[in-house]
């Protein structure tokens, strides 16, 4: 399948930054996701899943794959006054999965905007972060994102470029210091 040039550039930059990018069709996604989950985990484990932001029906698909792969799913719960995580279960999760609306070709960055139930912490606490997007989410750069933003900025915008890393001991690059050591980005094309 052919990809727009801007998406090709995103893939190159994201891979250079250490993100694993994989292009899949909607039909292939459940199989590929199950493969990834099976390869990296020994269930039963917990997966943290964003509650909102997903395109119609996708969250349910992902949830079904997680359950059939032996994962317990934890999501931000909607209560009076808004969403909240079960902190203990979030902290125990080994995988986090969210939908990412926008990503940047210029630097290979994911753009995570805050909002009720968007589940940003699922991309930060677990060792493995899995992110899903579609082809139309690709923007040129951060300036482009700000230009398209309507009104005031959300309470937080996080750019994620590759895994968490440190060079603080003898400038030796080491992954997964506070955040995930692995970031997998599935592009639905």
């Amino acid at each position, binding site marked *: 399948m052919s990809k727009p040039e801007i998406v090709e550039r995103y893939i190159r*930059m994201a891979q250079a*930054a250490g993100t694993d990018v994989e292009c899949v069709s909607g039909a292939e996604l459940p199989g590929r996701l199950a493969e990834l989950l099976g390869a990296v985990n020994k269930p039963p484990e917990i997966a943290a899943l964003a509650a909102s932001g997903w395109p119609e029906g996708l969250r349910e698909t992902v949830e079904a794959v997680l359950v059939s792969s032996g994962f317990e799913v934890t999501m*931000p719960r909607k209560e009076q*006054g*808004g*969403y*909240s*995580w079960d*902190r203990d279960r979030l*902290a125990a999760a080994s995988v986090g999965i969210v939908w990412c609306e926008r990503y940047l070709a*210029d*630097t290979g*960055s994911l753009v995570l905007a*805050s*909002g*009720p*139930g*968007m*589940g*940003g*912490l699922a991309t*930060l*606490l677990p060792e493995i972060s899995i992110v899903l997007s579609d082809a139309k989410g690709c923007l040129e*750069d*951060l*300036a482009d994102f*700000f*230009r398209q933003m309507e009104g*005031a*900025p*959300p*309470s*937080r*915008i*996080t*750019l*994620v*470029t*590759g*895994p*968490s*890393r*440190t*060079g*603080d*001991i*003898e*400038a*030796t690059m*080491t992954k*997964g*210091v*506070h*955040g995930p050591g692995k970031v997998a980005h599935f592009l639905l094309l």
Partner: protein
Amino acid sequence: MKSSHNFRKASASAVADEVLGAAVGKTADLLFSMRAAAVAAYPGFEELRDWGRSRKMEVSGDLATFVRRFSDRLEAAGGAAHFARDAREAVEIVTNIARGLGAVAAVKSKSMTAEEISLNEALPEAGVTVTETDLGEFIIQLAGEKPSHIVAPAIHKDRAQVAALFHETLGSAPGLDVGDLVRVARKALRERFLAADIGITGANFAIAETGTIAIVTNEGNGRLTSALPAVQIAIVGIDKIIPKLSDLPGFLRLLTRSATGQAVSSYVTVITGPRRQGEEEGPSELHVVLLDNGRSPLASGPFREMLHCLHCGACLNSCPVYRAVGGHAYESVYPGPMGDVLSPLLWGMDVYADLPDACTLCGRCAEVCPMRIPLPEYHRKLRVLRAGLKGEAAAWKAEAPAILTQHPLLYRTALGIMRRVLSLGRRLPDGIRTGLPGAWTVCRELPHPREGPDFRSWWEKRKSCHE
């Protein structure tokens, strides 16, 4: 703040420390070459530096207005702005917030501004234990030391020293490699993150237009510190302000390339106020402490562009003096070229009288500075200023070379006299010849003028041959 600092004395032991020299050299070299590669790969970088400088000139030209705009917009977004004239006020604000909350545990991501106000020493007195979460800062905290580089705080330690430290303080197995050491730190720090009442951060940028702060880290500790605890306190120097949100992409490009040679760091967190209705991530209270501590007066003085500093550390990595002595010899939060200038300006020329001399005027720092701050010129200006404090004669002596070079006839005459004196000096016995100029010849020789005519008269002769 402290009694007068003696750089010559403090650096003498650092120069002799081989482990220190090797560790600092290795990291500084790597950061320097990574910056060079990243800049070479970005064709518009020189224009971007000019653009960045002009945006910062706009802010430093009207600093009070931009500070007010930032605090107004922050409060409109639901945050609380606090003004601190000096370090004492800033510490008071933070400890009062902590006491009001009944907080007992804080996590902190890297902030040189928090170092500047010695926040870590003050928080325990307010009943709050504070844990540094940047790996380098965590290492330094466990060792009971001070950071020695503004970007790579543990640059002076090698892996064996860190392994021994973790073994001693965290009970990990002895002799671990870097990957295992990082895993030990992750586990220890994760528990602290989850238990903390307060997250203390700095900010790399504060955006006046929207009251937004931006935090850049590779480890993700800045993101965790600002996302998990119920209350976030950001300590922000008023020099961190940039005008608009649309300026952020350009400044990020300049900062990350200059600091670590990356096109972008792993995490950039852009925060506008506390969490909003219905959201599950972020603090419910966001406090921003805007620290002046001697910055406002700089805006109207001859060192104005120091306010443009992005604290990227590129000048440290390029500086032959920093690389030889490491950060601790400067005995200041801010080491290296930017520190030589900033420390005397913030804490007084009487305290840091030596630092303007910790510079060979080689100019490498000015070449790499993303904001084009004229650091060598500022070093020289500080030397003149310092001489002025000693009296008129000393001030005239410091200005004399500048006066000479501006008056050709005077310069030629003085040069002729120098040539004669130096060639005369060559005939003197060794002891007297090297003894006379004092400190100048401790580690160098006096210049030897060559025999025969000087260049100028030689050239005059040649010129007439050609005509």
